[in-house]
């Protein structure tokens, strides 16, 4: 027997999950799932119902996490029905990890210690790619695929090619992971990496907090990728220690030196400027200097992409001691209740409220046009979310710009799209 073949991190995880010593990109394999996540929209009312029609139980109740975050916190009778059904379904199926109204699924999942390096995971949501920030291979799937997983614990996948995304240099003050992703969206488009896995590497990633890495993997979905992933290191270990996961095998879950990346893309982050996505697609991103004439009515800090603790910290750095423009409705929806608590402890929330922020419940909310931050007719908004398709965040006549937490904060102050570097 020769030496074991070199593999990328994603290939290693898939090989382990399908019980083979090695896999190549293009292979179609059936993997055993280590964890399935679903929310109130994709979960009990869709996949759950279909599973019941099949008449089989959940394959392994220890491996299922159900999180409610989409249709919460309002009086809409349809939404209430969805919540009641979710509760009843989880009860009757004895779901062990049913996390109700604690925040957005992709940010709640790691907070509750469900993710660690080397896991093969699926989620009933396209941004399930976020889990890759923890060195797990996590993909988003639709409801029928979820049923297949719930019934059998398995799913077929085509082993993706891995793209090595090397982030070189140093991020300048006022520039964030979100700017990197918007820049990549502008350059490669929303299908730029269809079917591929993006592994983020390089000195910028090595210095990044886990939460900033989550922005990279979250928005891998906006590049069409099957997933995004970051190999685990001391920073991953430190985050996971906080949530009770002590021993991770960081050495094992790395791409081999000789691994076969389909291509390597290098982005020099030292010269990166703030990026903004114009309506109605993340790929309409351009450097912020193109947007000086845009007057805004609303600014939103929210979603799994843009309301983690680090995101709120960025907003606070810009807003400290300032007030938002009187022409702006400024909303902040911390991604989880834990993050909200931490933000209170750190005094961040106070900074935001004093600047004029209205704090909203922790859930998907404004990202999908629900709750107080829904964009009304002809409203022009800027937000830290990941998508700005027509009508997604409110009325179809509204216009939504996407930007980093720094840029959204700076723009809230002036009432116009504003380069946050003026505040540094």
């Amino acid at each position, binding site marked *: 027997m020769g030496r074991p073949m070199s593999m990328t991190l994603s290939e290693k995880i898939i090989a382990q999950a399908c019980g083979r010593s090695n896999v190549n990109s293009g292979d179609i394999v059936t993997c055993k799932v280590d964890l399935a996540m679903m929310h109130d929209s994709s979960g009990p009312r*869709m996949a759950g119902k279909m599973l019941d029609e*099949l008449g089989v139980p959940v394959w392994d109740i220890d491996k299922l996490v159900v999180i409610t975050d989409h249709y919460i916190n309002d009086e809409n009778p349809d939404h209430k029905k969805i919540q009641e059904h979710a509760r009843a379904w989880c009860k009757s199926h004895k779901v062990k990890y049913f996390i109700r109204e604690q925040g957005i699924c992709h940010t709640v999942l790691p907070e509750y210690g469900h993710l660690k390096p080397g896991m093969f995971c699926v989620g009933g949501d*396209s941004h*399930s790619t976020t889990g890759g920030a923890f060195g797990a291979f996590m993909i988003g799937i*639709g409801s*029928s695929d979820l049923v297949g997983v719930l019934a059998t614990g398995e799913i077929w996948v085509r082993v993706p090619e891995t793209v090595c995304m090397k982030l070189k240099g140093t991020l300048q003050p006022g520039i964030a992971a979100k700017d990197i992703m918007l820049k990549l969206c502008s350059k490669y488009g929303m299908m730029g990496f269809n079917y591929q896995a993006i592994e983020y590497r390089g000195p910028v990633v090595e210095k990044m907090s886990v939460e900033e890495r989550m922005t990279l993997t979250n928005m891998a979905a906006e590049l069409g990728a099957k997933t995004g992933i970051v190999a685990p290191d001391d920073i991953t270990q430190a985050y996971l220690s906080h949530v009770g996961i002590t021993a991770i095998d960081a050495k094992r879950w790395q791409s081999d030196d000789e691994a076969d990346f389909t291509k390597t893309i290098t982005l020099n982050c030292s010269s990166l400027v703030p990026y903004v996505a114009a309506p109605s697609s993340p790929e309409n991103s351009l450097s912020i200097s193109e947007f000086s004439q845009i007057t805004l009515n609303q600014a939103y800090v929210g979603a799994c992409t843009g309301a983690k603790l680090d995101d709120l910290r960025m907003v606070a750095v810009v807003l400290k001691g300032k007030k938002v423009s009187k022409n702006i409705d400024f909303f902040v929806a911390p991604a989880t209740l834990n993050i909200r608590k931490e933000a209170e402890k750190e005094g961040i929330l106070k900074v935001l409220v004093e600047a004029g922020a209205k704090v909203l419940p922790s859930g998907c909310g404004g990202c999908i046009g629900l709750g107080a931050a829904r964009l009304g007719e002809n409203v022009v908004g800027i937000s830290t979310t990941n998508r700005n398709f027509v*009508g997604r965040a409110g009325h179809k006549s509204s216009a939504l710009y996407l930007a980093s937490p720094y840029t959204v904060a700076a723009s809230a102050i002036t009432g116009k799209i504003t380069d946050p570097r003026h505040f540094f």
Partner: protein
Amino acid sequence: MIIEGKCWCYGANIDTDALAPMGSYQGENVLDGAKQCLRDVDPRFAKGVRENDIFVATENLGIGSSREAAPLFLKALGVRLILASSFARIFFRNCYNIGLPALICEQSPTINMGDKLIVDLDLGIIKNLTQDVSLSYEPIPEHLYNMVLSGGLLPYLKKQLSNEHN
């Protein structure tokens, strides 16, 4: 499997929010929700589309969320086949999972609104009857085709599970 029908043609980047607007589907009445399919892109579509029609798009069909309502709506409205130059991966899987074949056909942009097509999935042939030309598509992986023939992932699983029990 042979499908013959009239084409509804759209361009690039038709996203899942356009196909299944937020809030249009709560897991119950598919047909009600389907009336809103593409309402912001082409309000004539949901009213005019008929049984056996074919949905055609160019690049990146189905980008966006994982919501399965997007292909479900098309199927509920009568669409029996989808052609596009390229698909977003979750949407592509979802189509097969609900038993709706989705073909990667580079010549999709040559098809015009209202063209009649006949497609034989066993022989691998697409013919544009209106233009009198043949088109080609990427072969469907065998397990996906079997799934479509069973009517989708659920009926496929049902069959497998009942085989195991017998």
